[in-house]
């Protein structure tokens, strides 16, 4: 609720020109005359004129009359009366302003309308003032007051100033393209340059420079933000810093400097401009850093294709660090400029710019770490991810963060959650061990490469590990302030060391290696340990020479075996028999299973053993029959097949040597002292190789065809009795007709069979309930077979029966 004007006036008297006494004296006449001339105290019809963009031409153009001049002279003789006069004048103007602005609706005003309004008013008063011949001091007083009025009414409280909003839009539209381009290439048809300059000049004369600059800064920052977001988001393989500063120079700064040039004293223009440029670039880099912080996890995962972006991040952080601490000499000048500017021109807007980025480098660093750790928890360190992926990301993290921060402080922080997590993965050791030895890098861990690199870098590696104690190092400098308390300098860049150090002791690795190598050695059949030795040497450089005693012994065993095998006389060379001789206490992955090898082989072994005992006095050998490799030939009627198989398979197939009959799993298991399960496995192998045929679940027989007919798999091993086959037999039924389906199946599986074979097979496959074949006479069966031949079911040729197709 506002107080009525008269109440205000009674409290705060603001005498206006109207209050000047109406005397009839000469002086009064002068006053009157003057006042007459001055009125109206406000341009008339201002709103309409503004809209019509009228240029004012008022009292200023008309030369003052003699009478006026003398009136002015007499009324405004000295400073004090001038001041008094001006004070009253201002109060009148204030009233007018008030009246105008509170009654006139300017809601439909555009910016240029406002501008015209300002110009009209200014011109109006400037015209008046010019004639009054006031002293400079008083003139300044008037100006200042007038400016204050403008500010009050146009800007008021900044947040809802329509004028400022329009000013912002106007400036923004002007700054779309660089101002310094030639007008002909300018897209906007009307050339704003000149107008813009006029606007800026006018506003600065109104003491609104701060507002202008403030808007300008905000616009520039927005432009920078947009640019960075648009052009730098996810762009990681191109160097962007240069591009950014180019952009700022050409697009942002150019406008900025032009406008600043017109709004500040020219004396400091250059320095201010440099300072502004520097600050703008800094803001741009900060934007880039914020963007990269958001992208950090993906940056790491995309390593090495994101290498450039990471390097630039490092550079930005470095620049930031130097700025924050004013370490760089050139920036010392900048800081001086800062102070200079602040002192001389009191440009608060510049302070705004300089303080825009409140994020210090340490804030950026900690935000980077925080973001990465959060993202790694949600994306990586959970049970849904693959151990290999976690390891890979771990190595990538090391590589990436060492680019961002070579000292390793950030890496140290960021890597701790991953290390803790890796420890919980059960298969981590195995994966690491395999990865370290994986020549072909199937897991793409790159560890094998690193391991090989160790040897090359061995000299640097050892020198690094002899870190001078901090207390003795004369060149010691403290760790960065955000390093964690147990941060250890120096031991960062070695990825393998970093992986190994996750675990408390090397022993688990060594055990795993020993296991792995042991298994490899058991598969070795040519006694060539050179590859394994190479790997072992690499590991020794990493873990220590003396850590692999068991492996050393194992390798020695194989090497000695080779020599022994060369020394021992082999006797009859068919088959060639040789053995790897092991020191059993040191081969932990040795699994000995029972197996009865063919007699021939057993004899060979016994012979070998006695020769060994002669050579190595006091020692003898124990056979481990289930290990090794057997090379054998299988000679069929019309083909020979060569195989290299494990001993158990060889033993199984040896039972079929010269054996026409079928053998059951049970009997094989008994003969060879093997479990039924193992026997089945071996038999499946031979079936798969087309060597054996599976008659039933438990019976097998040699697959010996006369012709080379490819074997057709019978999925179900139980012979199915097809109803159709029963029907297709002829009218006169033979008494043994029930045997036909069985015989059919048999002949389907084994294309040709002799009489004896048929007899024995039928005895086995036909269930006793159907027919008891033990009492079957040969003649009866022969008869049946002949009948089948007559019925065109089967053929007889060269003593064997076949199915008729």
């Amino acid at each position, binding site marked *: 609720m506002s107080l009525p004007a008269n109440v205000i006036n009674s409290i705060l008297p603001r005498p206006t020109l109207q209050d000047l006494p109406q005397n009839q004296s000469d002086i009064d006449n002068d006053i009157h005359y003057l006042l007459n001339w001055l009125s109206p105290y406000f341009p008339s019809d201002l709103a309409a004129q503004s809209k019509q963009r009228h240029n004012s031409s008022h009292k200023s153009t008309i030369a003052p009359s003699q009478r006026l001049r003398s009136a002015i002279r007499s009324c405004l003789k000295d400073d004090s009366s001038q001041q008094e006069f001006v004070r009253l004048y201002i109060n009148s103007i204030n009233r007018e302003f008030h009246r105008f602005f509170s009654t006139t609706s300017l809601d439909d005003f555009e910016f240029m309308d406002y501008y015209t309004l300002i110009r009209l008013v200014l011109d109006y008063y400037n015209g008046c003032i010019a004639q009054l011949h006031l002293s400079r001091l008083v003139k300044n007083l008037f100006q200042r007051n007038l400016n204050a009025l403008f500010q009050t009414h146009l800007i008021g409280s900044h947040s809802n100033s329509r004028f400022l909003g329009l000013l912002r839009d106007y400036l923004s539209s002007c700054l779309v393209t660089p101002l310094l381009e030639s007008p002909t290439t300018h897209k906007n048809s009307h050339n704003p340059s000149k107008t813009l300059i006029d606007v800026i000049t006018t506003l600065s004369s109104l003491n609104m420079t701060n507002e202008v600059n403030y808007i300008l800064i905000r616009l520039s920052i927005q432009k920078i933000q947009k640019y960075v977001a648009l052009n730098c988001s996810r762009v990681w393989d191109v160097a962007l810093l240069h591009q950014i500063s180019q952009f700022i120079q050409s697009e942002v700064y150019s406008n900025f400097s032009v406008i600043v040039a017109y709004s500040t004293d020219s004396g400091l223009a250059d320095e201010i401009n440099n300072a502004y440029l520097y600050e703008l670039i800094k803001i741009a880099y900060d934007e880039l850093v914020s963007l990269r912080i958001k992208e950090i996890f993906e940056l790491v995962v995309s390593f090495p294709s994101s290498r450039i972006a990471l390097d630039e991040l490092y550079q930005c952080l470095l620049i930031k660090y130097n700025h924050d601490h004013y370490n760089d000499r050139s920036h010392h000048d900048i800081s001086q400029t800062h102070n200079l500017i602040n002192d001389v021109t009191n440009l608060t807007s510049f302070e705004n710019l300089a303080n825009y980025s409140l994020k210090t480098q340490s804030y950026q660093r900690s935000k980077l770490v925080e973001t990465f750790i959060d993202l790694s928890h949600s994306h990586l360190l959970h049970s849904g991810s693959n151990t290999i992926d976690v390891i890979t990301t771990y190595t990538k993290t090391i590589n990436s963060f060492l680019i961002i921060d070579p000292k390793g402080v950030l890496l140290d922080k960021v890597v701790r959650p991953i290390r803790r997590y890796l420890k919980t993965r059960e298969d981590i050791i195995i994966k690491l061990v395999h990865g370290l030895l994986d020549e072909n890098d199937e897991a793409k861990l790159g560890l094998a490469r690193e391991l090989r690199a160790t040897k090359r870098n061995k000299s640097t590696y050892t020198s690094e590990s002899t870190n001078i104690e901090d207390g003795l190092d004369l060149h010691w400098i403290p760790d960065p302030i955000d390093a964690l308390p147990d941060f250890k300098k120096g031991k960062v860049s070695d990825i393998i060391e970093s992986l190994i150090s996750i675990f408390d002791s090397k022993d688990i690795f060594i055990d795993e290696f020993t296991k792995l190598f042991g298994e490899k050695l058991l598969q070795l059949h040519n006694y060539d340990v050179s590859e394994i030795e190479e790997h072992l040497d690499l590991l020794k450089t990493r873990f220590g020479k003396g850590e692999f005693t068991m492996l050393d012994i194992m390798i020695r065993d194989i090497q000695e075996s080779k020599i022994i095998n060369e020394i021992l006389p082999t006797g009859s060379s068919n088959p060639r028999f040789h053995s790897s001789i092991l020191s059993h206490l040191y081969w932990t992955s040795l699994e000995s299973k029972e197996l009865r090898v063919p007699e021939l082989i057993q004899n*060979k072994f016994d012979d070998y053993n006695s020769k060994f005992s002669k050579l190595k006095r006091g020692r003898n050998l124990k056979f481990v029959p289930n290990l090794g490799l057997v090379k054998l030939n299988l000679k069929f009627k019309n083909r020979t097949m060569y195989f290299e198989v494990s001993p158990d398979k060889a033993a199984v197939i040896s039972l079929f040597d010269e054996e026409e009959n079928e053998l059951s799993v049970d009997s094989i298991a008994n003969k060879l002292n093997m479990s039924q399960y193992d026997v089945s496995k071996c038999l499946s192998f031979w079936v798969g190789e087309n060597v054996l045929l599976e008659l039933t679940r438990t019976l097998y027989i040699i697959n*010996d065809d006369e012709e080379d007919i490819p074997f057709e798999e019978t999925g179900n091993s139980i012979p199915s009795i097809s109803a159709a086959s029963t029907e297709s037999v002829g009218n006169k039924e033979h008494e043994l007709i029930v045997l036909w389906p069985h015989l059919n199946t048999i002949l389907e599986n084994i294309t040709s069979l002799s009489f004896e074979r048929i007899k024995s097979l039928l005895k086995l496959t036909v269930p006793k309930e159907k027919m008891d074949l033990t009492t079957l006479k040969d003649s009866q069966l022969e008869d049946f077979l002949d009948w089948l031949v007559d019925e065109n079911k089967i053929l007889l040729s060269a003593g064997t029966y076949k199915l008729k197709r």
Partner: protein
Amino acid sequence: MKVEIVEWHAFSTWHWDIPGTGYEDELCGICRVSFDGTCPNCKYPGDGCPIVLGLGCSHNFHLHCIMKWLEQDTSKGLCPMCRQIFLFKEGTFGAEDGKKLQRLVDGHKATRERGPNESDQEFEAFDGQQVE
């Protein structure tokens, strides 16, 4: 079908030939390590770390272990396990080692034959000096 084995690569483990049952579990009484393993001084088992079979008392040891024991005068050439005079079987180790071992055994034998000459003495406390 004929099965023709061309080559058989086998695996076998070597063991010291020690008479008696359960030879795999037997330990050398001095170092308490299995015979098929090394004595504490050696890295590689086998020819480099042979064993010694006792002759009279059938106690066996690593060559290096028993030599360490026999080098001590206090051993008096006796078997550590049963305190009988220690004699060994030939055959499990090389000639040089054999000679060394024999020398030690002979040395003790000689001492024994020289006869006891100080067991009647009252003891005296010395400071670090042993008389022999």
